[in-house]
């Protein structure tokens, strides 16, 4: 029954996008990709989702920007970044030679800016898809973002989809009562896939100074701590809606990734794990391959959505 590792078919077809394997890196946790060149073979990855890009360069939030919590990390980076022009000039040329799918995480202060980023990037080559970051909790007050309600989600996705020549993946927020309702709004607006989850709005208190530990007061919680909630949300969306789901939240190992696939995700993103081990995403690919080989699973896509519930 066991196969040799090399003979497992890892290819992943999202419909609008074919990937070498189902493992991408999560936006904001893999820089612009090139930082990781010394630690892993980028071509081993299914794809790279680069750090969130606004149209212009952006300064981000005052430090401290990170605080570790039990099995988790709260960040309040505030989407500091180089802007689309520097990205297109300095990063993209090298990144597109990395031999993996490049997905750009698109940000905006308003719907116009999202559209402007997409229109600018549409003129560049070597981008496989856009991931619409409508769910960053670190930009507006108390985590406000379009992904908290169906209407703004619908409007923004519709607008960007119309502006774009490339597929759109809409990245959802877990800070909602019904993730299915928001995913549905994105699907109705024509998104090609949904990605979930972004981080959970959270805080930490420094008892001695009685101040928030983050410069921005609130931040977004990621890491293994959130995995059980993220997995539930992926399962809800994938078992209710027809739109492809990219799952993430606390994936550290191949087993974690496979659990998301079994729960219904067609692909996954590895986030915080890349901070702990810069080669984590490639290791996750290896572990998926080895797990499938040992159990005679010939094609990883056959596992997607196979969770048996009573």
């Amino acid at each position: 029954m066991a196969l040799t590792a090399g003979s497992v078919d890892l290819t992943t077809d999202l419909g609008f996008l074919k990937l070498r394997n189902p493992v991408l890196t999560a936006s904001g946790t893999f820089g612009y990709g090139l930082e990781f060149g010394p630690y892993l073979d980028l071509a081993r990855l299914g794809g790279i989702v680069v750090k969130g890009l606004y149209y212009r360069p952006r300064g981000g939030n005052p430090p401290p920007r990170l605080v570790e919590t039990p099995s988790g990390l709260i960040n309040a980076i505030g989407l500091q970044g180089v802007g689309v022009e520097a990205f297109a000039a300095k990063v993209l040329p090298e990144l597109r030679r990395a031999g993996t799918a490049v997905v750009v995480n698109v940000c905006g202060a308003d719907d116009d800016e999202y559209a402007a980023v997409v229109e600018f990037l549409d003129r560049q080559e070597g981008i496989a898809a856009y991931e619409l970051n409508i769910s960053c909790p670190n930009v507006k007050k108390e985590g406000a973002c379009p992904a908290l309600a169906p209407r703004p989600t619908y409007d923004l996705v519709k607008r960007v989809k119309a502006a774009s020549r490339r597929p759109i993946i809409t990245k959802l927020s877990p800070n909602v009562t019904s993730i299915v309702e928001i995913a549905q709004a994105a699907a109705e607006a024509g998104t090609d896939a949904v990605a979930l989850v972004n981080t959970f709005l959270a805080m930490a208190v420094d008892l001695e100074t009685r101040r928030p530990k983050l410069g921005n007061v609130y931040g977004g919680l990621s890491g293994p701590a959130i995995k059980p909630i993220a997995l539930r949300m992926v399962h809800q969306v994938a078992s209710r809606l027809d739109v492809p789901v990219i799952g993430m939240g606390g994936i550290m190992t191949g087993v974690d990734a496979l659990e998301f696939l079994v729960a219904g995700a067609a692909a996954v993103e590895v986030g915080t794990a890349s901070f702990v081990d810069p080669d984590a995403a490639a290791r996750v690919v290896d572990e998926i391959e080895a797990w499938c080989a040992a159990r005679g699973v010939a094609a990883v896509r056959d596992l997607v959505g196979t969770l048996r519930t009573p």
Partner: protein
Amino acid sequence: MAIERDARLREAQSWGDFHRFVIDAPAVGREARPGQFVMVRVSDGTAPLLRRPLGIHDADGNGFELFFKVAGRGTEILSQKKVGDRLDVLGPLGRGFTIPAPAEGTAVWLVGGGRGIAPLFFLARRLAEAKARPVVFYGGRTSADIPIRGRFERAGIELICSTDDGSFGFAGLVTALVSRELDKSRPAIVYACGPDPMMKALAAITARHGVPAEFSLESVMGCGIGACWGCVHRIRGAGGDDWVKICEEGPVFPGERILWP
């Protein structure tokens, strides 16, 4: 830049909360330059989750040394490692201190506060090898906070100590000591590592005396490799005053570029 997952703790020494580790890790040791750091994984599990940044205290072809103070759970777990235990380290990371060229005969001062002495031993050794004339100022609250005095002495490096409570050496802040010495003589450069208030005061003092200075900054670090943008400090840059990633462009910066909070 390597991940050495099979580094080994060869020797461990401790003084209360302070610990010195000698670690077999050739790939890190060979490349290391003074002022660089490593990211150490302290547990195999998820809590603590992130690696911890620690300065390179010394290095050679076999590996490197750490000198650290227990500050919380991560460094506490690290301090409990036993000789022979496996360590998982990522490094060397960041850019180090600038060694003057030519260094020969040049007077250079190194100012370390508490655990901030860590990278300065490696720096002092390299400066001495380059035939500069390093003088180390080593300050702590009390004599227990400056445990590795003997290390410098054995390496033949000139050392002047201070303690806030006067229990050893100069009585007062190390910055007051350096300030007094600067009134008498003038090094080519001052290197410093220590608590923020110490470095901020020292930056003012060296600027007033017109002496170039380099400071090794600290910050909570997510990745250590420039990917998370978590470790930023305000640094005067080419393009205005920016939040700069200290893991990548630092942790060492010239005094005139640092905007202190």
